[in-house]
């Protein structure tokens, strides 16, 4: 009876999770879906507490309370701009939890386990620990605890491949000698090492792709736990999680016009500018450095304005100031649209969350396909800390590293205002021809400060 309730609670939880993800197809019902997901989790936890192996609840209670406090605190106080870090950390927790469950399971049931369970446990600790250290590395790189530059050494790819193969060999050996604990713990140790060494050589700015990929490893670790414990809700959640991470990292690398392999083994994103391959640099282009007043003149005259936010908006936390500026312009009768590129910022959907935080309605926000034809018709474009996603070299210069990546046609606009701090390049380290166009005004300075001045100018 208890067992039946347990399993039914898991079935209910599975359905809730599926419905929660389905609801994310539109912001209208996404919140309700998330609530449903939380309810599913609650049902599964309550069902589990009836498990007949559980004989005391004190450690459980302490863990639940402690976890809730930490989790609650983290999600209430973390600023929206720190989402990538937040997500990296939680993958670390997820990987650790999966790995520890695997160790605990093996330590007390070791000898009696069948081959299938043994293999599942092996995979679980390997993937779990890999996700754990890998995510911590990614977190460190994002936070700047570890240098964001790729740390490379000779033969690193060979080392990584060797470690993966060793893990495979250990797994096979373990399947045949399930009582050899050394094999099991060897896999765990290898997982810890691979997590560190595989992430080290990847540039800090590529971390979002790494994080998504770790997401799918975490999912696989969960699914492996499910196979080991014959727990189907774990398999379902793990598979959903795994596909989500995988699809998002594919989307990112596609939108960045780079292959997966290039990201994982390419040591790209060094931050060292290599502007030699840009036509603008070759031509020694002069930039049209403008004052705030010049920009206010353009904004005042514009009936239609497209705002293109980029990573710089996140850095300077300019979203609220931007909202004030566009409100002031709207009060004067201008029509404002926001153009958000799929890889603007450093995380899928990064800009959307920040704009939403600043109360900008999402029906004013447009995707690449939706708005790219509008640039040639609009009066003015305001580029707020975006660089690569508006670089025309991606369309025109076959020699450029980002050639072929779809970008906004900002270069076709009548008047362009660009806000950034310097003439330094963006994520890809490339010069941007857009900044040298005759109809582009560069207003240098921190985006938030500049926008505040612009607002003051527009208001009065």
């Amino acid at each position, binding site marked *: 009876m208890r067992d039946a309730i347990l399993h039914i609670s898991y079935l209910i939880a599975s359905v809730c999770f599926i419905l929660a993800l389905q609801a994310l197809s539109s912001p209208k019902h996404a919140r309700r879906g998330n609530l449903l997901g939380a309810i599913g989790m609650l049902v599964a936890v309550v069902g589990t507490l009836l498990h007949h192996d559980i004989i*005391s609840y004190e450690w*459980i209670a302490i863990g639940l309370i402690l976890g809730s406090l930490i989790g609650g605190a983290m*999600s209430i106080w973390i600023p929206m701009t720190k989402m990538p870090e937040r997500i990296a950390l939680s993958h670390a927790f997820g990987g650790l939890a*999966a790995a520890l*469950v695997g160790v*605990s399971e093996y330590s007390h049931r070791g000898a009696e386990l069948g081959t299938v369970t043994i293999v599942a446990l092996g995979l679980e600790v390997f993937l779990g620990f890999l996700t754990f250290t890998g995510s911590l590395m990614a977190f460190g790189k994002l936070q700047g605890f570890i240098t964001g530059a790729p740390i490379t050494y000779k033969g690193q790819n060979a080392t990584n491949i060797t470690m993966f193969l060793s893990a495979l060999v250990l797994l096979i050996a373990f399947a045949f000698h399930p009582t050899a604990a050394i094999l099991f713990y060897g896999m765990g140790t290898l997982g810890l090492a691979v997590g560190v060494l595989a992430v080290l050589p990847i540039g800090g700015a590529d971390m979002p792709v790494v994080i998504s990929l770790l997401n799918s490893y975490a999912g696989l670790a969960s699914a492996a*736990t499910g196979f080991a414990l014959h727990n189907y809700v*774990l398999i379902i959640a793990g598979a959903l*999680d795994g596909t989500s991470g995988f699809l998002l990292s594919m989307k990112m690398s596609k939108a960045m016009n780079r292959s997966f392999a290039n990201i994982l083994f390419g040591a790209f994103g060094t931050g060292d500018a290599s502007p030699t391959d840009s036509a603008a640099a070759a031509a020694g282009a002069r930039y049209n450095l403008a004052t705030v007043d010049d920009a206010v003149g353009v904004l005042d005259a514009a009936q239609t304005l497209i705002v293109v936010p980029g990573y710089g908006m996140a850095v300077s936390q300019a979203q609220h100031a931007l909202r004030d500026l566009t409100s002031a312009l709207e009060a004067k009768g201008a029509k404002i649209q926001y153009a958000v590129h799929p890889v603007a910022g450093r995380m899928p959907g990064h800009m959307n969350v920040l704009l939403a935080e600043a*109360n900008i309605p999402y029906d004013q926000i447009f995707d690449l396909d939706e708005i790219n034809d509008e640039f040639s018709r609009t009066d003015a474009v305001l580029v707020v800390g975006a660089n690569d996603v508006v670089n025309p070299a991606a369309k025109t210069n076959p020699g450029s590293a980002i050639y072929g990546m779809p970008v906004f046609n900002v270069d076709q606009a009548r008047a362009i205002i660009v806000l950034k701090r310097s003439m330094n390049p963006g994520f890809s380290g490339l010069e941007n021809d857009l900044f040298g166009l005759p109809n582009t005004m560069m207003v240098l300075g921190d985006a938030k400060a500049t926008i505040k001045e612009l607002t003051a100018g527009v208001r009065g």
Partner: protein
Amino acid sequence: MSSELHELLFGLYIFVLAGFLGHHVISKVPPLLHTPLMAGTNAIAGISLVGSLVSAGAHYSKLSTILGFVAVTCATINAVGGFLITDRMLRMFKTKRGGTKS
């Protein structure tokens, strides 16, 4: 067929179906909501909690209990934190003007 093999096969059915389903469901999420999606799948991954609860409460051995306790804590952080932060984000997405800054 051994009961273990049966369980494996059954798990594979579930895994394959959920994988296909995940593919369809995730591809329908618009870029607008990709960050909440990442946070939301994180929250759902907190379900590994149910695996750790048994370890923490079963007194199989001292080691099991301690490992279970740490795992319960970690998984709870993800589950509770994940749903809360996803909700916090989703609350911000609005169509109509007005409302206060969150």
